């Protein structure tokens, strides 16, 4: 329990971009990255449960659907992002970038988890505001994750490494994750009880 609390505390501190894990503990960054990924899954499940609050079966399905979307989109984005990092910002450690990415995912899902009680309440009590809040919370979470990721990756930039190259790599991570996320949401749909956002994947975006 103490371990978990320490880990969460350190991850929250890292969201600010300034905090760095102790360099004397070699396995700590990897532990933080994996811990951030696991915590993200738990937070995403909480949001999924709230987003399906209108229907019990949907809520239960969301407990694995939303974490699935978050985890698989992150995993697919990582190789492309790391390759871009290698090409555009040689000298920037991949592990460090992955830690920033994991912390960004953690912060985005933390936003989702924090909004969850409100979301569940609104889904129960308002036909109009529930879906709006659902979509709004996702947009907010994405914005927070983007800001945290860019800030974190720039804060951990080693000397002599191009800032522009680091930004390109960060953008590559995000673009890849969003592209995968869109199709995974289409596969996993429905997630929200009353919203058709991205349920048709890229086809919906292009055609409509």
């Amino acid at each position: 329990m103490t371990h978990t609390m320490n880990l969460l505390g350190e991850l929250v501190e890292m969201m600010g971009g300034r905090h760095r894990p102790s360099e004397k503990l070699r396995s700590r960054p990897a532990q933080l990255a994996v811990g951030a990924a696991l915590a993200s899954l738990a937070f995403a499940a909480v949001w999924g449960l709230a987003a399906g609050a209108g229907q019990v079966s949907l809520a239960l399905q969301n407990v694995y659907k939303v974490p699935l979307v978050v985890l698989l989109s992150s995993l697919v984005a990582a190789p492309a992002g790391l390759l871009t990092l290698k090409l555009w910002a040689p000298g920037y450690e991949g592990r460090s970038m992955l830690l920033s990415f994991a912390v960004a995912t953690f912060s985005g899902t933390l936003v989702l988890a924090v909004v969850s009680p409100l979301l569940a309440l609104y889904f129960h009590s308002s036909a109009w505001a529930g879906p709006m809040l659902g979509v709004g919370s996702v947009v907010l979470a994405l914005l927070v994750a983007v800001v945290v990721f860019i800030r974190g990756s720039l804060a951990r930039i080693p000397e002599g490494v191009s800032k522009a190259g680091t930004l390109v790599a960060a953008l590559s991570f995000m673009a890849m994750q969003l592209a995968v996320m869109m199709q995974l949401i289409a596969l996993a749909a429905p997630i929200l009880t009353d919203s058709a956002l991205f349920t048709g994947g890229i086809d919906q975006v292009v055609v409509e």
Partner: protein
Amino acid sequence: MKRNTTTAAVALLTLLAGSVAQAIESSPSSRAPAVAAADHLLELSGARVRVESTWVLSQPLAAGERVELARPLLVGSALHSEGFQPMKDARGAIVALSARHALAAGVHRLQLSTPLAQARTQLPMPHSPCVNRVRLERSLRFEPTAGAGLRHRMGILVADDIEQAARRQADRLLDGRHAHRRLGAIYVRGGALKGTLESSKTHHGQALLFIGGLFVLISAGLGLAYRRLTRAVDGERVDLFLEQELGADLHALEKKS
């Protein structure tokens, strides 16, 4: 006198031949096909597929005039239209549509409801060389069979015998002069739609099952990795503590030995 009679007979024959030719031309069976293009929008509604069809008539149809279907619509399909009345054969299959009243050239709509299993072959396609455009709502998915003569062309599926000009003309007839490309549409002629039609939910369900399995495995892997990393970090912490607390003594001991 004889010459006059012959001339009159020839003139009469010519007139008769002309009328016969005109009569043959205007008879329903030999007239050029009345449908110039057709569109079929398929949507899943429960266990049935609802088809909204649009026929573009190139010429007016007289009341009672028939338009044969490329393939009969089997029993179990229900067809409704303001302008057309279904004509059934002895088995009860709809084989043609008959104009309820005089129909002007232009757009006419039909609605068909059919079980999902039969939906692929149950489309009201006219027996005519016109281009049929088939569109699917997101609730449905079509997978052409190999050798079906359908080719992917930038987001649409087109039968081999349909040239770009014919396809674009069909689009213009159906959507107007400024018709744009309908992504995901399938273009075929006269009932040649060969493939599997299934609900997107069923198709996505299989993919989701696979992805779900992958997700469980990866999550378990992450859990294991986290436990190992925690042990490693604990070990490193102990080493660090020992080095900080006993570092000087250990160095001294090492030097002595």
